[in-house]
């Protein structure tokens, strides 16, 4: 177990280094690169820009600049937003809660419904339910999230008037119920793709678990079928799903970005797009790095949880 954790930790750090190199390349591809703020200022002469470039150390070799940049990243100095002058970390922190709330509630929906569909599909293999679920999952994976959001708004907000068309709360009404009311539609929209992914993987994992020897043993002991499925099969099938949850984080963030755009949800995805429109590159870079680091940490945590739960790894 300690050996496994150490190995996994070293891997993650190595991955962080690679991610930071990719990030650094993207940063230098930006118009003006790290000088973007000044490149847009018409009151500056080329001499001024050269002087600033020298002060910022941009005349040094690229690899020195990289270590400088990465070092500041590690120390928590992520730069300053061009738009409102606050540190990037503060700006991201302000928008983090809304995104985490949206991702959390939609993950809960996806896991709940997806697990149920997956188990039912596996236990009722080749039933009509199974076919409809399989085809439905493939179609759900093909629907653009933002379009599903637009259709949702059209039906439930504009035609039926049951749910609000956007925003996180009604101004002047800070009640929890009001938040929940605004949360329903974006969460379901974001969840659709993940219900499909989750149900397909859960179906495969359940089928895999059903064919194991211990299931045969449990049945032979006379354990009721319901108990075999609920305890022995599902318990084991859920184990790889923990890893899947970590792996799916980037696609969840992608979905969150477009969902937030459609529903004017004040989260990190919306911040990312706004910052792009304002050419606020420090925030764009900050969010890019933040999302990758979040993914790496989430994968590490998922692996640690699996290691803690799975006796084959825990006792090794």
């Amino acid at each position: 177990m300690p050996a496994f954790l150490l190995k996994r930790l070293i891997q993650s750090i190595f991955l962080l280094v690679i991610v930071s190199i990719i990030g650094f390349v993207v940063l230098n591809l930006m118009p003006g690169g790290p000088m973007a703020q000044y490149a847009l200022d018409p009151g500056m002469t080329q001499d001024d820009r050269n002087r600033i470039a020298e002060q910022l150390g941009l005349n040094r070799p690229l690899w020195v600049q990289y270590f400088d940049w990465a070092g500041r990243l590690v120390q928590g100095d992520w730069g300053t937003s061009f738009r409102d002058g606050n540190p990037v970390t503060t700006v991201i922190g302000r928008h983090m809660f809304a995104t985490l709330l949206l991702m959390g509630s939609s993950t809960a929906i996806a896991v709940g419904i997806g697990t149920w569909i997956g188990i039912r599909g596996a236990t009722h293999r080749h039933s009509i339910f199974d076919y409809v679920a399989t085809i439905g999952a493939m179609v759900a994976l093909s629907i653009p999230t933002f379009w599903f959001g637009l259709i949702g708004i059209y039906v439930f907000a504009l035609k039926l008037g049951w749910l609000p068309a956007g925003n996180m709360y009604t101004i002047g009404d800070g009640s929890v119920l009001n938040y929940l009311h605004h949360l329903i539609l974006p969460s379901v929209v974001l969840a659709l793709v993940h219900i499909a992914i989750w149900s397909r993987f859960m179906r495969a994992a359940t089928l895999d678990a059903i064919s194991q020897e211990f299931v045969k043993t449990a049945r032979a002991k006379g354990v009721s079928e319901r108990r075999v499925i609920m305890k022995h099969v599902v318990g084991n099938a859920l184990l790889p799903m923990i890893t899947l949850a970590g792996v799916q984080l980037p696609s969840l963030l992608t979905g969150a970005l477009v969902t937030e755009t459609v529903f004017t949800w004040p989260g990190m995805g919306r911040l990312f797009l706004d910052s792009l429109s304002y050419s606020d590159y420090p925030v764009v870079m900050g969010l890019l790095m933040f999302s990758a680091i979040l993914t790496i940490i989430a994968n590490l945590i998922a692996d640690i949880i699996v290691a803690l739960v799975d006796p084959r790894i825990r006792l090794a």
Partner: protein
Amino acid sequence: MTALTVQPTANRWWQSRVVQRFIRHKLALLGLVMIVFLTLACAFGPYLLPYDSLYIDLRARFAPPLTGEHYLGTDPLGRDIAARLLMAGRVSLLVGFISMILAIVVGMIVGVIAGYRGGWINIILMRTVDGFLSFPSIFLLLALAAALKPSAMMITVIIALTGWMEVARIVEAEVRSLKEREFILAGRMLGLSRAHIMFREILPNIMGPIIVAATLTVARAILLEAYVSFLGFGIQPPLPSWGNMLNGAQQYLASAPWLAIIPGIAITIAVSSFNFIGDGLRDALDVRIDTV
């Protein structure tokens, strides 16, 4: 999926193996027919329609579908949506295909080299794959699209840049399992060059998984193009694409819902057709890869 699962005896007509196969392949067939139909419609349809995709008629703004000769209605500038949809289909399908080819080529080269050479080269290449996979694709895509001035070709390249990793992973795993096989050892004994073994001996043997991955990559590329163009950072007007036709549709959702509904249906049909084909090919070529 697993060999241990005993096929239950067919007691319902839809449970027989023949029907199952037929249904699965029927979906793939349906997908193929849809793609051929879409491609032909996009290629030749614009010549058959009464309106040009760029013809602006301000008196006919916001015409709902089936008004006169505007079969799918008109947009806020009075342009014919049917004509625009087909022209946009050309762009979206082309972007999907070309970026698939780029992604497959890059993924194949990285995968074959990483799998065959092993050692440090493998570690560095495959960790780079993991590194790219750590970024949410839309974040990377938008940052790159903002950094490099977006032309249609640039968007295609960028989409490929965020889509080659799955292929590399699949190819790497296949190559690693193949390279110890006798015919490869024999090739090495004969003194064939490394490049010859990698690309002439190993590669043809793993075309099955690559073809399946290619089909699913087209689906993904069309979807991603729609995402970035919808957000306004992808294909730029006046060149229409399914994604940028939806850009701005939200503000007319109450008065002209067809602006949002029609291009979305086109995207969903195209993408699910490719997904159906990929699923059918996976069955037909007996490929076992975990891609969703």
